[in-house]
C-alpha cells in the first residue's frame, strides 16, 4: 500500500511517500492512521490531531471509515487551501 504525505504532514513525517504493509486488522482509513502513528515520533506528531488531517484513497476524498484494500494509494494532507 502506498502512502503519500502533503504540505506539513510531509514536513512532520519527514517523507513524501512510503510503501507500507499494515497488519490484517487494519481494514479502514481510521485504523491505518492509528497504525501509522507508531512508525516514528514524526508520524505520531503529524497525526496527533486528526481534525486537521484529510484523507484520499485512490485520489478521491474519503472519511475515516472508508475500507482499504491491498494496492490502494492513500494520501494524507491538511484541509486544502487552493484558489
Amino acid at each position, binding site marked *: 500500500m502506498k502512502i503519500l504525505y502533503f*504540505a506539513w504532514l510531509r514536513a512532520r513525517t519527514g517523507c513524501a511517500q512510503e510503501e507500507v504493509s499494515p497488519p490484517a486488522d487494519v481494514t479502514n482509513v481510521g485504523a491505518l492512521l492509528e497504525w501509522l502513528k507508531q512508525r516514528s515520533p514524526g508520524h505520531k506528531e503529524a497525526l496527533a490531531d486528526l481534525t486537521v488531517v484529510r484523507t484520499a484513497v485512490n*485520489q*478521491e476524498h474519503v472519511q475515516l471509515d472508508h475500507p482499504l484494500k491491498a494496492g490502494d494509494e492513500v494520501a494524507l494532507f491538511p484541509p*486544502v*487551501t487552493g484558489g
Partner: protein
Amino acid sequence: MIRVQREDFDTGAELQKLTAGNTQIGGVTCFVGVVRDMAGGSHIGAMTLEHYPGMTEKQLMAIEAEARRRWPLDATLIIHRYGRLDPGDRIVMCAAASSHREASFEACHFLIDYLKTKAPFWKLEDTEKGAKWVAAEARDNKAAARWLEK
C-alpha cells in the same frame, strides 16, 4: 476544460478561445484569483503552491462536470497554477459561458467555491516570521455548502 500549470495565463486570450466559434453563447462569467500581499495581519513576500498531481486533475474535472450537469453551459474553463507565486500574480481562473447570464454567473461562482474546498492545493506563505502553511478557512466551507443540492 481544465489545466494545471506552473506558467502564467492570459485571461483575455483564454476567454477568446473559450467562446470562439460558438454564437449561441450569450455571456461569459470569469473569476480570476490573485496573490495578496497581506494575510492575517502579516506581510507576505511570496508563496509556493503545492498540489497532488493526478488527484488535482481528477477533482477539477469532476467539479467541471458537476457544473455542466447543473447548468446549461456552452463552455467551461478552470486553470490553476502551482509553484512559486509573487503578490499580484494570477493563481486561478474559472469561467463559464452560457446562452443566459444567470447560468454563467452561478456556474462560475460554483466552480471557484467547490475548487477551494475540494481541489488538493496547499499554500506555503513566506511571511516576516518565516514560511507558514496557510490554514483552511471555515468561511470557504460555508461558501461551498451553499451549493449543496436540497
